[in-house]
């Protein structure tokens, strides 16, 4: 399976993602934002970081960079595109997934492990995964997911919510919402479920020497789904 990670000026989780993808069997290539063509890929990843210094709005500049035209075409033709953290912010700015990510409710930069409940397994990202709850890591200042009432209805009607913040038993309550996101939303799909944007970083949970192994469950499952 082939993957590509896009590096924008200010990306800082691109190499972590490269290490994670390779560890679980992807042949990964790094792609510079100023390139125009994507290598043949089964999965494109927009990594975390602070693309363009978060100027204007997080992800807004990166969403207009040269390579994104190819990424948008790839996604619109059914290709798998996953945006993590800043990558999620870039995805919302392209309009590939609905909504926006606002400043965290309590204005803090949050950096900690959290639990997420998988809301929808009828897609290539979470299909066949045995766990209902995964422990991931978040590190963000703008992760407060927001959308209009009409958008929320559409998202829920189309089962586009991918994961919600919860406790270790999968209980989704306001007290387990780290950043003020509507309905504890931590990640969403596009309508077709080939594009996934999420704030948590699975690539930071691929080794017990780091902070856990639940990212390994996610990546192992992902590559098996794509085979």
């Amino acid at each position, binding site marked *: 399976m082939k993957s590509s990670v896009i590096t924008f000026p200010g990306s800082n989780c691109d190499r972590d993602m490269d290490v994670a993808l390779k560890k679980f069997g992807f042949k990964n290539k790094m792609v510079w934002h100023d390139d125009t063509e994507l290598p043949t890929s089964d999965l494109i990843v927009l990594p975390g970081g602070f693309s363009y210094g978060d100027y204007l709005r997080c992800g807004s500049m990166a969403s*207009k960079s040269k390579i994104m035209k190819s990424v948008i075409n790839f996604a619109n033709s059914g290709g798998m595109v996953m945006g993590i953290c800043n990558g999620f912010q870039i995805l919302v700015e392209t309009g590939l997934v609905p909504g926006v990510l606002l400043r965290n409710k309590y*204005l803090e930069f949050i950096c900690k492990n959290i639990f997420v409940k998988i809301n929808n397994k009828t897609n290539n990202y979470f299909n066949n995964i045995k766990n209902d709850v995964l422990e991931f890591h978040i590190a963000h200042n703008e992760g407060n997911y*927001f959308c209009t009432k009409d958008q929320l209805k559409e998202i829920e009607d189309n089962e586009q919510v991918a994961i919600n913040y919860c406790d270790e038993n999968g209980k989704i309550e306001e007290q387990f919402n780290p950043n003020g996101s509507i309905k504890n939303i931590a990640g969403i799909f596009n309508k077709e479920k080939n594009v996934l944007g999420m704030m948590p970083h699975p690539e930071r949970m691929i080794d017990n020497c780091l902070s856990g192994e639940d990212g390994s469950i996610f990546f192992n499952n992902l590559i098996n789904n794509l085979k």
Partner: protein
Amino acid sequence: MKISVVITLKKDVLDPQGKVIHQTLDGMGFNDVNEVRQGKYFEIDTKEDNPKKAKNKVEEMCKKLLANLVIENYKIVDLK
């Protein structure tokens, strides 16, 4: 032409920064403030000297980049 644009958050969008500024103003003794909403201000100097065309171009810039219309409104406040 120089065009000035103000971008503000829509009414129903939470503005935590505006809230904190409001609280701070309150703490400083400015107790008659009802609400503070933070926004952005842009000055765009363009080669276009036809006011109507310049205005249209800037509106397009607002829709495509300067504002995110899910949460923000834009307003052209000056044109000269």
